[in-house]
């Protein structure tokens, strides 16, 4: 697989490649107190049955590198928060997996190669932001930091890594390592999380990695302020309803006394939000469908001009010069139609040229009708015709869909107007009451207090909205910049993705960046001419591999080939068809043989995936580790050890066969 020779201006980054892993006293891996492995370049595959701790192994490696284990429920907002909020989770995660007895001694050591350095560190799963050991090897000399305290070692490690990587902060590395380079058991699709995509784009494609931080902050600020503004509005509404209640109490005997205004308000709001969702959904569907139609139309235009050119070719290729109107007239009238000469010699010269298949005007020798060539041209013409016909059908079905979505959008939009009107009517109706409470002193004061609180709330809301809008502006600018950078890079990046993904799916794939409001930037992958959002035509397992392809392509594009990092993939094969197992294996194998690294775990079974990776990589670019040897097997597992053996054997044979 060719590395991109892009001439883009941005600096590629370096990421750490896992070179060595040692786990000590990880209770799960009971066979040995110490489990260790050299991890050479290429594909490192940890194969074993379910329940042997494959995911734990990958999580531990990532933990060693980043210092965190991601909390499954935590959504990504910004790299800084992601790191901070996840720090405490490692304890929870490992507590269940490591017995109390091993708690003190248990540790993980990872050596990683980045840029010109080899960083070797040791961490305990239960010590936050602290390293038990760190050494840094550069240009043949090793520096150990045994004398420093754990926190300092952590800081030094982070600094060294950031310096080598070309990133701005350690957060950014953590983000890339855990959310872009790792496809873990949670199977979060990169392309589906707009915030992750956006951050990755800032980091990977942006002109300025500082901006990545700022953009994330701006986004975060926008969301916070937006949420605050809405909360304040809610508070104001509640206060208003209290005030309203108060007024009713005063007015007495109002039948609406017991009406819960907040509930009513929320009801209106819920209706509005629901309709709003409908509008957005229709807009998305419509835009998708329009894109598809545009695709078809563009393809049609191109094909049609080829069709016309091909047809014109047939018409051109078959000219009989004697049938040309001027020649024909000249022969009939015995007179040159061009100069008017009736001289016998002139006319004879015309007939002579014609009989010699030469042009009487310029003398060019004309070839006779080439029946074989014409038949071939016809064949091509019929092919184009069939393609055009297919495009026609597809375009007309898109046009139908567009009509349908337009209708739906129209009706949703008008429903939205109604819902918003209802909401605003409601608010006006409950605002407009004249305060008749001043007479009663005590209640009057309460009312005044409420009113002033409402006023304050409204002012507060405006402040939030202003801040929100300012943040939104920053965010939008950043989005615009990164979208521009990405677009500039598309020509190089998209082929990388297509190369990988198409080798897997065997279908035309393309990927486009889209701006969604208010969600932000998002990748949209299209299979054939249909965008992926109509995801039914691609199975879930296939989608995993398309997502992995996207991660691979991103790495190939932005990570320096001399320090390419390691992609961590946790048991990806799911329930692929056998045909796709081979293709997926081929895709992973090609990545591995292209100077890139994968640390992958897999079930040891009859899957063709590993066999194909092995066939593609061979001994020198793939290492297979029998995980069954690390741990005590269950009875059932032991009973089928022979099966495991033969499965391992087959893969090992494939490794050797290359």
């Amino acid at each position: 697989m060719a590395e991109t020779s892009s001439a883009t201006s941005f600096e590629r980054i370096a990421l750490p490649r896992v070179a060595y892993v040692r786990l000590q006293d990880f209770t799960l891996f009971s066979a040995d107190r110490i489990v260790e492995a050299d991890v050479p370049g290429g594909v490192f595959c940890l194969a074993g049955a379910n329940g042997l701790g494959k995911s734990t192994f990958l999580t531990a490696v990532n933990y060693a590198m980043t210092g965190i284990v991601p909390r499954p429920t935590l959504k990504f907002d910004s790299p800084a928060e992601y790191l901070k909020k996840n720090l405490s989770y490692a304890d929870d995660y490992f507590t269940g997996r490591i017995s109390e007895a091993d708690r003190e001694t248990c540790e993980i050591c990872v050596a990683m190669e980045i840029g010109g350095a080899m960083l070797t560190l040791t961490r305990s799963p239960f010590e936050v932001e602290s390293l038990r050991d760190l050494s840094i090897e550069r240009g043949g000399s090793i520096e150990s930091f045994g004398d420093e305290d754990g926190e300092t070692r952590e800081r030094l490690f982070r600094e060294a890594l950031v310096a080598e990587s070309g990133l701005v902060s350690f957060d950014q590395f953590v983000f890339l390592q855990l959310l872009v380079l790792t496809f873990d058991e949670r199977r979060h699709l990169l392309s589906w999380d707009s915030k992750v995509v956006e951050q990755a784009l800032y980091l990977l494609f942006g002109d300025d990695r500082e901006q990545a931080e700022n953009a994330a902050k701006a986004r975060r600020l926008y969301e916070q302020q937006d949420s605050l503004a809405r909360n304040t509005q809610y508070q104001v509404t509640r206060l208003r309803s209290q005030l309203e209640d108060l007024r009713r109490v005063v007015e007495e005997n109002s039948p609406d006394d017991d009406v819960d205004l907040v509930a009513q308000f929320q009801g209106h709001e819920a209706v509005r939000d629901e309709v709003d969702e409908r509008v957005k959904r229709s807009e998305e569907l419509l835009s998708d469908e329009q894109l598809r139609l545009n695709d078809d139309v563009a393809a049609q235009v191109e094909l049609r001009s080829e069709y016309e050119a091909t047809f014109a070719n047939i018409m051109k290729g078959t000219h009989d010069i004697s049938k040309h109107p001027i020649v024909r007239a000249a022969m009939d009238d015995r007179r040159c139609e061009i100069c008017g000469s009736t001289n016998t010699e002139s006319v004879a010269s015309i007939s002579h040229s014609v009989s010699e298949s030469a042009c009487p005007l310029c003398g060019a020798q004309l070839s006779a009708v080439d029946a074989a060539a014409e038949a071939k041209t016809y064949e091509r013409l019929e092919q184009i015709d069939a393609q055009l016909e297919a495009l026609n059908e597809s375009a007309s079905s898109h046009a139908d869909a567009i009509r349908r979505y337009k209708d739906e959008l129209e009706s949703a939009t008008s429903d939205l107007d109604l819902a918003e009107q209802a909401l605003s009517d409601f608010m006006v109706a409950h605002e407009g009451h004249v305060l008749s409470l001043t007479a009663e002193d005590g209640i009057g004061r309460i009312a005044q207090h409420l009113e002033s609180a409402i006023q304050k709330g409204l002012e507060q809301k405006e402040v939030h909205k202003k801040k929100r809008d300012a943040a939104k502006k920053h965010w939008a600018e950043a989005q615009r910049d990164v979208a521009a950078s990405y677009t500039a890079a598309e020509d190089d990046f998209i082929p990388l993705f297509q190369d990988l993904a198409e080798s897997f799916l065997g279908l035309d794939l393309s990927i486009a960046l889209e701006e969604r409001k208010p969600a932000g930037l998002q990748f949209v992958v299209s299979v054939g001419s249909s965008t992926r959002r109509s995801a039914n035509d691609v199975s879930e397992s296939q989608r995993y591999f398309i997502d992995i392809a996207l991660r691979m392509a991103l790495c190939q594009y932005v990570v320096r080939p001399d320090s390419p990092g390691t992609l961590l993939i946790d048991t990806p094969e799911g329930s692929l068809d056998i045909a796709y197992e081979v293709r997926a294996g081929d895709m992973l194998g090609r990545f591995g043989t292209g100077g890139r690294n994968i640390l992958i775990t897999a079930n040891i079974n009859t899957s063709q995936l590993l066999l194909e990776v092995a066939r593609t990589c061979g001994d020198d670019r793939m290492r297979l580790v029998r995980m069954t040897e690390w741990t005590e097997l269950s009875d059932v597992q032991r009973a089928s050890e022979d099966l495991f053996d033969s499965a391992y054997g087959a893969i090992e044979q494939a490794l050797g066969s290359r």
Partner: protein
Amino acid sequence: METPSVAYFDCLYILSALGSGSGGTSHSELHDLGYLACLLSMLDDKPAADWGYSFSATRASAPFGRALTDAMETLLSRGAISSDARFLLVTPQGEADLERWARLSANARRLPYLRGAAASALSLTFPAFSSGLHEEPQLRASGSSGGVPRVLNEGPAVNLLHHHFEQLTRGLGERRSPVVAGTVWMTYLTATAVSGDD
């Protein structure tokens, strides 16, 4: 500009359908039928721009499809058509081309309209058919504008045509295939033309 492939097809289809029974097809009949076929496609809610080439009305000739004349010239030099006393006829080579081209879907899609035009012309004497066609609103308008050259199927005269189409559609009811519409419409207009109320 390159002659569009459909013009070659239309030209061959029309000459083949009209045959040799009246000595062949005249130049203006070729354009008349092409134009009527185009109108029938418009009656079938297809945009005029989709026809593939345009028609104009000039003092010398109306309707006139430049592409049809170009196609005719090329087909003559290809030997696919011949002319006998200046009337146009399809040669066996042309029949073979026609059969082949009819299988191409861009051409096949036009068949209903070409059929409609051919059936209309063959149901009447050719001059009668031409007279009828010239009662069609756009050609009538171009005639009454004193032969000022104009492009057909665009401009205000199209509104007249559409009004005409609405009535035609109402009169025909369910039977509004291009073939029925064409023959009935042309028969009707021919009767109008010869009634001489102009």
